[in-house]
């Protein structure tokens, strides 16, 4: 285990989008069982610090690989492929239009206090997102088409943000 290795190497996993989450979980736990500060609670200050740095590193790697969006972003980063996150204008007009419609629907439901409607939006969006992740897996793992993967990842960033906003709206309504 090398502190500066990439996240996949750190856990001894192949560099793919469709990682085996069970194996990832197991590797993460094995690694933490080695380095976690609880294993060094009665150690010297220097060793405690080291262990904290290692455990931090292991957590960081796990977080980056556990969820599909950060994992996609990380794969693109490793491939030297720019995701162009700041560059909204690069998105096709029809996609942006669709986004606008979603956002309006969320806004309306929120203002009208329609929890059911928001929940419906949540689940519909969730299905859409799942479909696109399946596509993304093909682009990364079968076709190694990084520019196309970057494009889809960018869309997914929008969709995940939208999902987050729906959830926030739900929370806001429920907290009232």
């Amino acid at each position, binding site marked *: *285990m*090398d*502190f500066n290795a990439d996240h996949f190497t750190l856990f*001894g996993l192949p560099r793919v989008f469709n990682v085996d989450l069970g*194996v990832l979980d197991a590797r993460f*736990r*094995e*690694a*933490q*069982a*080695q*380095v*976690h*500060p*609880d*294993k*060094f*609670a*009665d*150690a*010297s*200050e*220097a*060793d405690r*610090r*080291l*262990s*904290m740095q*290692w*455990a*931090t590193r292991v*957590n*960081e790697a*796990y*977080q980056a690989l556990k969820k599909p969006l950060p994992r996609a972003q990380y794969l693109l980063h490793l491939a030297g492929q720019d995701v162009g996150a700041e560059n909204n204008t690069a998105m096709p007009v029809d996609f942006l239009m669709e986004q606008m419609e979603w956002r309006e629907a969320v806004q309306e439901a929120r203002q009208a206090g329609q929890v059911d409607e928001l929940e419906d939006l949540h689940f519909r969006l969730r299905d859409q997102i799942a479909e696109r992740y399946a596509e993304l897996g093909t682009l990364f793992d079968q076709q190694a088409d990084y520019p196309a993967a970057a494009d889809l990842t960018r869309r997914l960033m929008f969709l995940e943000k939208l999902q987050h906003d729906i*959830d926030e709206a739900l*929370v806001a309504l*429920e*907290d009232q």
Partner: protein
Amino acid sequence: MALLQIAEPGQSELPHEHKLAVGIDLGTTNSLVATVRSGMAVVLNDEDGRALLPSVVRYTPEGEVVVGIEAQAEQARDPKNTIVSVKRFMGRGLEDIGHVESAPYDFQVAPGMVRLKTRAGVKSPVEVSADILKVLRTRAEAALGGELVGAVITVPAYFDDAQRQATKDAARLAGLNVLRLLNEPTAAAIAYGLDNGSEGIYAVYDLGGGTFDISILRLSKGVFEVMSTGGDSALGGDDFDQRILCWISETAKLAPLAAMDARLLLTKAREAKEYLTGHNEAPITAKLTSGELVNLKLSAEVFNDITQTLVAKTLQPCKKALRDAGLRPTDVKGVVMVGGATRIPAIQKAVGEFFRQEPLTNLDPDKVVAIGAATQANLLAGNRNPGDDWLLLDVIPLSLGLETMGGLTEKVIPRNSTIPVARAQEFTTFKDGQTAMAIHVVQGERELVSDCRSLARFELRGIPPMVAGAPRIRVTFQVDADGLLSVTAREQTSGVEASVAVKPSYGLTDDEITGMLQSSLEHAKDDAFRRALQEARVEADRLLEATEAALKEDPHLLDAGERARVDVALEKLRTVIQGEDRHAINHGMDLLALETNEFAARRMDQSIKRALAGKRVDDVKIGEEE
């Protein structure tokens, strides 16, 4: 030490010695100390066989510090010098504290944390808590017949950084070596999970005297993983008492209460509340200082009515915690009830309805946190055999962020991140030639800085003058396994490093701690200073030994120049150890640590490579089966 002292299989270290370690539940209402003896976690009782130490501290006219039931008995007679529920003030300014009007103290505003004026002088909540901890330390040392190597102290999971820091300071002040700050619901989960061999998703609902926590955990073989946590660090049984007090005042049409009367009626309110667990009606009788008699009956129905919003207030965080974990109530396999206030029938009913299952009330809600803490302390002290251990993955309860333009917060580490965790963020300057920059660290979920808790403000100075936008200032947040934050900042481009470590502004400075240690030394002839020196020597000795052993074992990991520097540091430490200067010893250790940092890292690498090399083989097999 273990990083340097990695024992090869078969090569055993010292003969197995049992280290004295305890778990302490420092509660708002009651505190406990527990330990593991002959493999069993037990709560340590006082001489009269009582396990619970009421968290009440009285400073007597004779200059004594009385803690516990005797102090509690005097609270209505001597309210200003008898501090109850001090946990509510930990890491809190006066403006943060609810019901100030009915809290019968002489508060003093102080930077960061409120102080209390007593006849024994102005006391910080940290000092008062330390007085409670000292009693527990003494109790444990008497029962175990020796000095403690360390303690696990529990804190509410929803405690923020300032409250955690204050708790750790209190333990230090009480002469305790803190092995870990452990979240109370997590401690309960350890006690429950190990006892029942539970696997699956569990919720721990912990309503104590002053705090409420909800944690969602995933229990699997050898791993306790906190998925999310939520709560309210100012909601507990005390608030139910407060509601009853209001009801008494209204119903009996009382004039604004004097300090002694407020304390008396709060005590009566609490008694009534507890009586209503198991009865339909509670009598409330009291004689006020004016001679006026209060004689009322509180029915369970009225009680439920006036406290209904408090019960509801606990369900909101439950919802949020489930949502953060991505779960529904029915995904939860069991709801473990912790804390004395979960005995209230309306609470049990509401929790049962929310999670759609009977909550688990079969364990002692008063003791389970201390038992879990003792179990963890035993593990951390190294008393367990290899294999007979577990991994605990906990989270931070509240997001950490920075103030950005317009008084908005920018989240740097989101809540429910598994700790330890670090995140770095880059900043730059706005003006040409700008050499300083203000950084404001906050904790909380809200968008506006003014709605979050301010943890620290610091100025980064010594940025080399450059054109605006050229400097690259990297600010790193590091949260350790105690859930405590440190922030460092560094200018990257120039090679000139400006680096600072901040302590939250609500924590005490090291000088303040030293000052308190000094005064406790003078007043109570405490041996904290000698202890600290002794501890430093012991640790230095261990470090020397470990380093020497490691050098013997792996000399090939260092080149000649590195080795020479390590030898110099070793020699320096050997010299200062003879002296009386604790700081010089600590400094010597730091120096040696610095010189061996890289060496230790290489040893760690080597050992992990070996460990994981063994695993790879099995994994290949798994891969083939699929």
